[in-house]
Structure formats: C-alpha cells, structure tokens
C-alpha cells in the first residue's frame, strides 16, 4: 500500500485530480454572469483538459516509452484539437 502511495503514478493522479477540480470550479456557473460566453474560461478549461490528456497518454498509457512516431502522433492529435477550439474563438 505504501509503495502505491509513493509511486510516481499516484503523484500524477493527484495532479490530475486537482486539475479537474480547478477546471470544474472555473467552468461552473458563478453568480449572475454564469451563462455568458468567456474566452478566458474556455482557454483555462481546454488547456487543462489537453495537459491532463497528455499526462494520461504519456504516463498511464506509457507512450513516453513508445517509439517516437507514436509520441509525435499523439502530440499532433492534441495540437489539432487545440487548433479546432482556438479556431472557434
């Protein structure tokens, strides 16, 4: 059990969980302006999601140990996704 707590994967999970809560707080409705469009909220929420996704792909899926072509393909997909969102604003 102690080894699981000290495992780097658990540290990454903590980072992912905290990021999720920050993202949730940022994107949830607060006060009277709750449903207004917000480039800032979108930027924060999407950037956090892409960083989290990259952490899952590289560390949990172990893509950081994979051949370079796979690492680059996954990063290219994330970049395309970011471009799609950025294009809408």
């Amino acid at each position: 059990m102690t080894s699981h707590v000290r495992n780097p994967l658990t540290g990454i999970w903590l980072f992912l969980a905290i990021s999720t809560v920050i993202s949730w707080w940022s994107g949830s409705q607060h006060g009277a302006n709750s449903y207004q469009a917000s480039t800032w909220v979108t930027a924060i929420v999407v950037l956090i999601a892409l960083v989290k996704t990259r952490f899952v792909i590289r560390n949990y899926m172990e893509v950081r140990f994979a051949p370079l072509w796979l690492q680059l393909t996954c990063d290219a997909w994330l970049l395309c996704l970011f471009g799609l969102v950025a294009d809408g604003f």
Partner: protein
Amino acid sequence: MTTATTLPARHLPGDPSIWVFVLGDMVIFGCYFAAYLFDRGHDHELFLQSQQHLSQGVGAINTLILLTSSLFVALSTQAARAADLRAASGLLTLGGACGAGFVLLKSYEWYSKLSAGLTISSNAFFMHYYMMTSVHFFHVLLGLVILVILRRELQGSAPPRMQLLETGATYWHMVDFLWIIIFALVYLMR
C-alpha cells in the same frame, strides 16, 4: 520505478493492433469534437443556454472516478510486471469497480435529463451531448468486459501474458482521456 526499470528504452505497450484501434478512435472522436465545435460556433447562445441544464458536478465526479480507475489499472500493470499477481488482480478489481461507478452515475445523469424532457431531439446541443456521451458509454461497457478478461488472465494458473494486460490497459486509458475532453468541451467551456 518498476516501469522505468523493467521496460526497454523504446517499447510499444500492448499489441500493435490496439494502437490501430486507439489512433482510429482518436480520429473518429476528433471528428465528433470538430462537428460539435462547428455547430457550437454557429449557435453559441443556444449551446450556452443548454449547457446550464447539465450537471457539472456529476461530470466532474465522473472524471475523478475514471482518473482513479486509470490509476488502479496502471498500478495493476506495474504490479503484474513485478510478478505481484495478487496485488495486480486486486488493483484491477478496484479499477473495474470505479468503471462500474461511472456507468451508474452516467445512467443517473441521463435519467434525470430525460425526466426533465431533455432528449436527443431537444436541440443541436443535446443531440451532440447524447451522441458523444452514449458512444463513450459503450466504450466504457466494452472496457469493463476487457477488465474482467484481464482479471481472469491474472488469476489463471499460467503466467499472465504481459502484452495482453498492456493491450487492455491501453484501451481503458483511452476511455479515460476521451472523457476528459468530453467533460471540458461539453460541460465546461463557455
């Protein structure tokens, strides 16, 4: 730790064919995301108004559940590599339990939306919402079946096939990261 010490410098996790599936699914979901963002760009106000009917809290809890599930499955893979099959099996069970929790919570969320009269034909936002979340939901169900198969592999009398364990784990982590993006795009972005 064990991952770094027991894997070769360059190692493709799992069977190569799982990566054809994963990359193909990434393209398909990328197209879903593009269609959603395209429609959202054309009727931003409708999407914002509809978004307020979603349960961001339920979406966030489901994200935490899947992240935790992914952690258990990743730890299970490491434990199997270290030949600690008992721990690997237990961790996989915990991962599957989290996955089942996701299914229950997602079902409750759909039930509450449908009860409120919010259906797939309500508007473009809810069409995308139900489409994306239901396609993902079926991925989770398939993932749960795969986790059961992996658990049997760990509990068999023969040494477990690491490539099979890595293949199943790769699929499960994909289910996790697709939800991370769905949660951001559908529930949170404004």
